[in-house]
């Protein structure tokens, strides 16, 4: 096969000692960036971009440069899970769903297992996506072109329905929480008409509410406040920490092979479309919860599931990786980080687009080879650090709690460089504490902030296209299938309940 020989050539390009060093440097930096909330892969790549400018001028230098930058990206994908599991603070948007089961696991003293599962499934997700990129890129690029505004809307709808249909708890409170999220998402500039919404002349509100601010507050600060009620310590401090924890987890993981396959597929699909890693992680979590026999225990504090960590992490990493494909073949970034990488390619004098694969063979295959190698490097780095990460939980509360609060404040500030966001973080923290005590579900709120404005934007774009005709969401096989599937997932719990009741009566 031609791809294999190209790939082997790519390995030869990527496997220079210099590039290997860059790989490990990139991964370590990326993990650090991933751990710090607010500082995302996009920041990391953007910050190092000018450095690579010089690098790219030497022969073969563009490959080294992209290896360094893409390894930061892999590192950030891995790193996002760490604080989610240990402290309920998602380091990156796509690790929010990881907190649902990861954090309860850590509270039960199984932080090591949760981390090992998260890292391993991230790796598997990435691997599946890279294989896809290696062998199916021309086909996949054509598929991505099918996506116009109505298709995007139906993808978001599908994400929503996959996740929300499973929500437990008071339905009125679920709806209220979700609508709060939508309302927060609507603040700022309306992209379709260019009007300002819900800002009331306050310039701080122009940029809207970033989802990370809400998440740091609701989950991170809220959780610390809740923990305080029971005294000055974190649960799960008696975590057993030894190097065998990784092997132990690996023994358990093959049980979830079906979830892994499903989540990889969801992730790749969402990455290529491009819908993004964050929706992918939510969708995958929702689907896993429906399909799993242990679904009822997902996200519970007494019986959290490793599977609930596997699903979002696999999908997020698969989506994050496959998001590079539309960037390379179409010049459309599938994620903010990919957007910065794209800028990098242009500055180095490479033109992403349909011709990149034929004109810059060395570069493209070097990059693809580095995706394999970079992820292996990443896995090695993070897995060896699992005991170290888990040991952080042993630091006394009075030391680690203020440090976490400082990290939250820095994180909230770095999202947009605004003090207003730091104040909002505290407000969200109080809201998170009160909401979780009153059993308002936080996940639908967060998902609504992530997807709200994107879904509305594509809905209204679609309406412009069709001049107000809703039929556009059923106008072709692709969009029709997704819409029907989404609506089916939404009503399924009701139908199932109804059926059960009918059966009970007869």
């Amino acid at each position, binding site marked *: 096969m031609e791809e294999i020989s190209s790939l082997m050539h790519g390995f030869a390009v990527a496997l220079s000692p210099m590039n290997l060093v860059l790989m490990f440097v990139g991964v370590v930096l990326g993990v650090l960036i991933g751990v710090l909330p607010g500082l995302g892969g996009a920041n990391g790549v953007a910050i190092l971009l000018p450095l690579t400018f010089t690098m790219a001028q030497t022969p073969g230098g563009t490959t080294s440069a992209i290896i360094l930058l893409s390894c930061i990206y892999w590192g950030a994908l891995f790193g996002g899970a760490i604080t989610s599991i240990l402290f309920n603070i998602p380091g990156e948007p796509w690790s929010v769903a990881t907190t649902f089961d990861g954090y309860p696991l850590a509270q039960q003293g199984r932080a090591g297992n949760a981390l090992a599962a998260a890292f391993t499934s991230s790796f598997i997700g990435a691997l599946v996506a890279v294989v896809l990129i290696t062998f199916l890129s021309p086909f996949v690029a054509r598929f991505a072109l099918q996506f116009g505004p109505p298709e995007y809307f139906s993808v978001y709808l599908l994400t929503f329905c996959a996740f929300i249909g499973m929500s437990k708890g008071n339905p009125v409170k679920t709806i209220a929480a979700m609508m709060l999220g939508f309302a927060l998402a*609507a603040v700022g500039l309306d992209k379709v008409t260019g009007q300002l919404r819900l800002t009331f002349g306050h310039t701080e509100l122009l940029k809207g509410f970033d989802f990370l601010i809400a998440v740091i507050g609701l989950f991170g600060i809220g959780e610390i*406040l809740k923990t*305080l009620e029971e005294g000055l310590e974190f649960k799960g401090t008696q975590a057993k920490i030894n190097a065998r924890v990784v092997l132990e987890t690996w023994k358990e993981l093959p049980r979830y092979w079906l979830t892994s396959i499903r989540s990889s597929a969801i992730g790749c699909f969402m990455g290529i479309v491009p819908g993004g890693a964050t929706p992918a992680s939510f969708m995958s979590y929702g689907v896993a919860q429906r399909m799993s026999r242990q679904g009822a225990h997902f996200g519970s504090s007494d019986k959290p599931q490793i599977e609930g960590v596997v699903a979002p992490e696999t999908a997020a990493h698969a989506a994050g990786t496959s998001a590079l494909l539309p960037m390379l073949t179409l010049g459309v970034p599938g994620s903010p980080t990919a957007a910065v990488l794209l800028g990098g390619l242009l500055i180095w004098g490479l033109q992403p687009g349909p011709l990149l694969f034929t004109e810059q063979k060395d570069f493209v295959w070097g990059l693809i080879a580095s995706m394999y190698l970079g992820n292996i490097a990443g896995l090695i780095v993070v897995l060896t650090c699992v005991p170290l990460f888990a040991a952080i939980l042993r630091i006394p509360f009075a030391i680690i709690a203020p440090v976490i609060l400082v990290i939250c404040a820095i994180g909230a500030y*770095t999202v947009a460089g605004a003090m207003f966001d730091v104040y909002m973080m505290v407000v969200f923290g109080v809201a998170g504490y009160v909401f979780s005590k009153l059993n308002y579900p936080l996940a639908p709120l967060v998902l609504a902030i992530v997807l709200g404005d994107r879904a509305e934007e594509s809905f209204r774009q679609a309406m412009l296209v069709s001049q107000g005709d809703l039929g556009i969401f059923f106008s072709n096989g692709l969009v029709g299938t997704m819409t029907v599937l989404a609506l089916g997932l939404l009503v399924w719990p009701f139908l199932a309940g109804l059926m059960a009741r009918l059966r009970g009566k007869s």
Partner: protein
Amino acid sequence: MSDFSGRPAATVRVVEMVVAALIACGGSVVIYDSIRLGSKWAEDGPQAGYFPFYIGLILVVSSAAIFFKALRAGSRATFVTVPQLKLVLSVLVPTAIYTAAIAWLGMYVASTLFIAWFMWVLGRYSVARILPVALGVSVFFFLLFEIWFKVPLPKGPLEAALGLN
């Protein structure tokens, strides 16, 4: 673990009603601004205020439902006891002061003071333990953000005096 049973500071019912009322207020604000923007379905699809209008409406309706349910049959169980609330406030209030202090002391000085205060008051550590942690964390973040990542964080008079900004 110590006993936090204590006197109740608030019942679930009251907090439930207060939160519902706040959400309803939020919903009303959303509705108000949506009407200003235009909340109709125009010929070529929804106007800017169309979705926010219904979001606001659902917020008001659902919070009203929560409010009246709590009024009629709210749980009289304790939402939080006084000792618990004191503990929560003992962290929340300094955190709020800390975030306010960032604006004029800068991120690094404020963080150092916050960590030191926390360790001293809540952890009762000795100065010998506090200083290295509080200073170390801030210096680490300074190096990380200002030098390494080149992400400027807020800085105050101390950095200006040292010529570090």
